[in-house]
């Protein structure tokens, strides 16, 4: 128990609890109404998928700035295919595959050409971002396909969004894979010291390919879920959620240096970000102050982290 209290996760959990309590009081309970909780959860779905992709790559010592671009382009591709009359499952598979291909492209740049992942994925981001409006002629493409709508906006028992189930399941699966399988361990090891991992018989390249491709597929999925929910794919898509994904991962303890953190922390990071933002709408904070407040939130989260780290050192 003492050990748990001293973890970073616990500190962040306290922050989350504080946010919930403060908003609940300020909003006379509206913040924790069942409907609002559903809203908060629904808003985590896209970010969760991006966080998994970005987070696993960060654990392995890379960074991927192209996830937003890939997801946007792939959603657009799916919408386009649907419009020209392709059955939903083919559109879905094609979009996911395209996500994988983009991820593989990143992996090639990083592994074969040994480029810094920051700049390599930035290039991919530009390319994919350009293709989204090329596919749609700069417009949006509406989605009428019931399956896509169902995936993005359907709700189990009219309460739990299916997309939430998908993303929670994904978080769970990836959390387990990271902590409990050989592959997951490999991710941490190559993030910590790729040379040592290689001499230990692991295949850093293979793992890094898998992660980039995986991240590409997940962001395609995120793009599709959002497009399904909005019943339209547009040129901005999930671009804006990309930084939120990285931020949530870092908040949750995944560091840029690689080798540390996990999905549990990332989930708390996502919840902190989304609860905070949602609460500001519930209690009617002006948009400008919202910007300031969400910046301040990051600093508060770091302070909490700082305090818990300091306490750890003292004991």
């Amino acid at each position, binding site marked *: 128990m003492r050990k748990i209290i001293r973890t970073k996760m616990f500190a962040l959990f306290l922050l989350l609890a504080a946010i919930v309590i403060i908003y609940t009081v300020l909003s006379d309970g509206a913040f924790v109404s069942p409907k*609002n909780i559903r809203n908060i959860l629904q808003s985590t779905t896209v970010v969760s998928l991006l966080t998994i992709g970005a987070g696993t790559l960060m654990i392995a010592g890379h960074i991927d700035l192209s996830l937003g671009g890939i997801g946007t382009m792939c959603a657009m591709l799916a919408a386009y295919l649907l419009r020209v009359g392709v059955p939903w499952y083919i559109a879905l598979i094609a979009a996911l595959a395209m996500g994988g291909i983009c991820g593989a492209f990143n992996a090639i740049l990083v592994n074969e050409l040994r480029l810094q992942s920051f700049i390599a994925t930035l290039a991919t981001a530009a390319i994919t971002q350009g293709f989204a409006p090329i596919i749609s002629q700069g417009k949006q493409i509406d989605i009428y396909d019931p399956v896509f709508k169902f995936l993005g906006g359907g709700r189990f028992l009219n309460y739990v969004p299916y997309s939430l189930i998908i993303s929670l399941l994904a978080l769970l699966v990836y959390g387990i894979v990271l902590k409990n399988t050989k592959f997951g361990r490999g991710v941490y090891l190559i993030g910590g010291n790729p040379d040592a991992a290689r001499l230990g018989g692991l295949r850093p390249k293979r793992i890094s390919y898998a992660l980039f491709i995986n991240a590409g597929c997940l962001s395609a999925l995120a793009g599709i879920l959002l497009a399904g929910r909005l019943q339209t794919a547009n040129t901005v898509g999930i671009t804006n959620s990309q930084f939120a994904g990285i931020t949530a991962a870092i908040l949750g303890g995944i560091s840029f240096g690689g080798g540390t953190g996990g999905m549990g922390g990332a989930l708390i990071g996502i919840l902190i970000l989304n609860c905070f933002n*949602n609460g500001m709408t519930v209690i009617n904070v002006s948009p400008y102050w919202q910007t300031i407040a969400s910046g301040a939130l990051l600093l508060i989260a770091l302070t909490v982290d700082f305090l818990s780290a300091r306490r750890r050192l003292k004991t």
Partner: protein
Amino acid sequence: AKGSEGKKASAPPDETAPSQTEEETPPPAATAEAVVSEIVGTIDEDVDHFARPAYKFVYAHYDNNLLEQQMYDAFVDIAPVYNFELTRMSGDTDDETYVTNLQTLIDRGDVDGFIIETTNSVQNAVLSLLEESGIPYINLFTEYYDAEGRVITPTVGLPQYQSGYDSLKYLTDNYKEYWGDVDTNEIGLITIDFSVSPALNERIIGIEDAFKEAFPGNENIFYNDSFAAGQSAWFTLEGGYDPTAQTIGSHPEVKYWMVASCLENYSQGAARAADDLGRNDTMLITTVGHPMLEQEWDNGYDGAWKCAIAISNYAYATPTVLGLIALCDGRATAETLWPQFKGESDECAIWLADYAVVTKDTYRDYLNSMDEKYGPK
């Protein structure tokens, strides 16, 4: 995709064409003239707004730019006149955030009416949320269409295509006054678009059409898309400066330039390019939107940026609020509001705001007249 055709179709007939010469004082816009006080949702009607408790409205805007701030200010100014309270919500230029925030507000359960300002990309999701909630709403700037291209939301907007058209038409009609009788083949047009916004894109289409109409066969049209130019160009002054300066620099065969943009910031940037290149004599700049130009003129600016489409913010705000109040009062439904503005096949009406091309000499009078007409009294 359906947006563009629909909007062109909804461009107002000729009677809305604003004043085009400087001498004329801007006429009271025909749109407003047609309004008679029996029609619900208009200024002159005889409604006691204080017989009811204040309505709680939310101005839910997608972007968070200058325009939104100005609209918010305008709404706040008229709130005491029409007895409503206003809060605002921003989507931070993100589809998901907008939809989630909207849903959050709906679920909070204390909103009487929404002023919805979005891009078309969230239309489907927003519509299904609002329909489900039953809360009255009015769209601002961007109207929604169904698959057949019919307007399906009561909207207060700008005739986007026409305003773009008119903004350039002023230049093509009057260029001789600035340049003298020049060879029209040496005239070129630079447009600066933000193409992924259908509304802004409409303006550019109108601008280019006006140019083609005035100079048939002239192919010196240089289209720039600030969306494609990258994020540093989005809504910034550099987003207007760089393409203008560089296009001019790369095309010495064109001697006289007209620059028209969909947003004021771009034209302001273009105006700086004209200053820096020393081309205030050979350039004419226009735009849709006026507040920055107004400031420049107030400060004595006299460069190539000659004119702009001016729209008083109250000309948007007041009809929006009155329409929404009528919906809330139950005096009208979305389908019966503003019947005189309803297209034949449309389900709902678009109130097209008054606007006019203004110049350094006319802007004061025009804006005063608009304040007189729509502002808080």
